[in-house]
């Protein structure tokens, strides 16, 4: 069985700094795969490389066996990859539900002619997309904001809204960059439940996260980065007992 996401010898240098160096790993379909490591370890850089926001200096990224190393983010979205951001990327000039409907972009192709005359087919598709977006907002737990402008939403709700938008795209793999950052304990528990539900649907989840309790609880496998290099890779149990990881985290 080929891996859904496979990374081979990935390198990214910013000037003289190697943010990511010689990183290789594979994510099987249906897994929850987490990337952890101290601040500045290159976790977000790795995500930016995988999702096409950065171009790697060296190495390969394969999605479903296809080499996607130099594809643009929108081309990766067409191939079933979607993500959220540590620095949330919400369109504040739109309503909450419009942000989620934006996630349906690839499913909602309509011609300029259909659009200008607002033909019935477009109205039907829009109504269906609106319904789907509303369902997704309920699903991630921001159903209270169905009518709200994005600017009126709380930080925690916006984080969930971003997940709803990514899910609206019906991805095969969803990358969540620090979804629990800035959330309180209750919100984090709800998030853990949500990630579990997403994984149950058969969507592969890749996660960058600092909250160890969360990560260890839901991950099938983990990748530990330190100074841009792979320190360890394995199941939560293996990682917990890995002496290098313990040394890096506890400074021992």
């Amino acid at each position, binding site marked *: 069985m080929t891996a859904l996401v496979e990374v081979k010898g990935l390198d990214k240098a910013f000037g003289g700094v190697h943010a990511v160096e010689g990183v290789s790993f594979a994510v099987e379909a249906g897994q929850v795969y987490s990337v952890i490591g101290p601040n500045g370890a290159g976790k977000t850089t790795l995500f930016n490389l995988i999702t096409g926001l950065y171009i790697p200096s060296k190495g390969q990224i394969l999605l479903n066996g296809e080499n996607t190393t130099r594809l643009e983010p929108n081309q*990766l*979205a067409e191939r079933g990859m979607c*993500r959220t951001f540590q620095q949330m*990327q919400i*369109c504040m000039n*739109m309503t909450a539900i419009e942000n989620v409907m934006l996630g349906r972009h690839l499913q909602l192709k309509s011609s300029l002619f259909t659009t200008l005359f607002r033909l019935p087919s477009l109205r039907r598709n829009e109504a269906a997309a609106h319904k789907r977006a509303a369902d997704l907002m309920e699903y991630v737990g921001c159903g209270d904001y169905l009518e709200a402008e994005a600017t009126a939403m709380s930080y925690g709700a916006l984080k969930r809204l971003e997940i709803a*938008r990514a899910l609206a795209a019906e991805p095969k793999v969803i990358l969540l960059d620090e979804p629990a950052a800035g959330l309180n304990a209750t919100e984090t528990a709800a998030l853990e439940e949500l990630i579990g539900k997403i994984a149950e649907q058969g969507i592969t989840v890749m996660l960058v996260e600092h909250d160890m309790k969360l990560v260890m609880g839901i991950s099938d496998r983990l990748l530990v980065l330190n100074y841009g290099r792979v320190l360890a890779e394995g199941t939560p149990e293996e990682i917990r007992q890995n002496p290098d990881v313990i040394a890096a985290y506890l400074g021992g």
Partner: protein
Amino acid sequence: MLDRFMQSRLRGLVILALILIILPAFLGNPFHYELVTQIAIIAATVVGLNLLVGFAGQISLGHAGFFGLGAYFTGIATGTYGWSSIPALLVGAILVGIVAWIVGRPILRLKGHYLSMATLAVGFIIAIILNNERALTGGPDGMPVPPFEVFGWELSAFGRYSLFGLDIEGFQAWYIFASVVLLVAVWFALNLIESPIGRALRSVHGSEVAASVVGVNTAKYKSLVFVISAIYASLMGGLYAHFQGFITPAVASFEFSILLITMVVLGGMGSTFGVILGAVVLKLLPQVLADFQELETVMFGLILMMTMIFMPKGLLPTLTAIVSKRIRKKAGGEA
């Protein structure tokens, strides 16, 4: 019933139509009609420009160039070569669309305000060509343009027409024509904004990264809206040429480009009806301040600055916010 209407997406369009129907009661003479018809044509241009500026967040400082190109293409095709108006307008629009695409495509791949620089240059180039190609355009002296004509039927500001048995003057017929054009332009713009394409455009403004990770080809959509807004300008330029009957390179001038942008900013970027108000205010202002004609450009600059500082959302959105706040306060006070 009334509530549902107020929620409806076409509410603004209906109100605009009502205003356009009632307006003639306040128009006394042909000059008033001429002014209002000009405003309608320019408002439609600005509605198109707003798609680019207000919704996609890209700035064009050369839109008068597209307007002028459309005007001159129509003028030359109908006047010099005897084309009918509709094909002249359409072919002109297609040509301008192609020019915009060629200019926009490479630049819009870049993030940031490179488009404003490029359009500034294109606007100047078009103005220079119109000034210098005397054989074709009459140079700085301008050129006459025949009246709007379809299948031998002419719409001239000096003609006399009959509409549903009612005798009307040519300038009144033009007013009706321009009003219908404006309503159609607004309807198209509203349909565009509230569609998957419109959402993609707004997302480019809101967060280009977010747009791209959900599959929006941001470069393609920016080019698309740039071309659409250029086509709006070209078509309106063509109509303007027919209506005025005479055009000079001033229609493609930098000053006019700035005026168009100022209308968008003053009225309210991203507010289709706001920018129409912007067009109305900035076209009427010179009439009111006729004594300070030489200060016109300074005035527009000042308005642009003041709006940016004190009303960044623009005239109509700011006024709407104030009014709805008042209403809510009142409702709250009674409860």
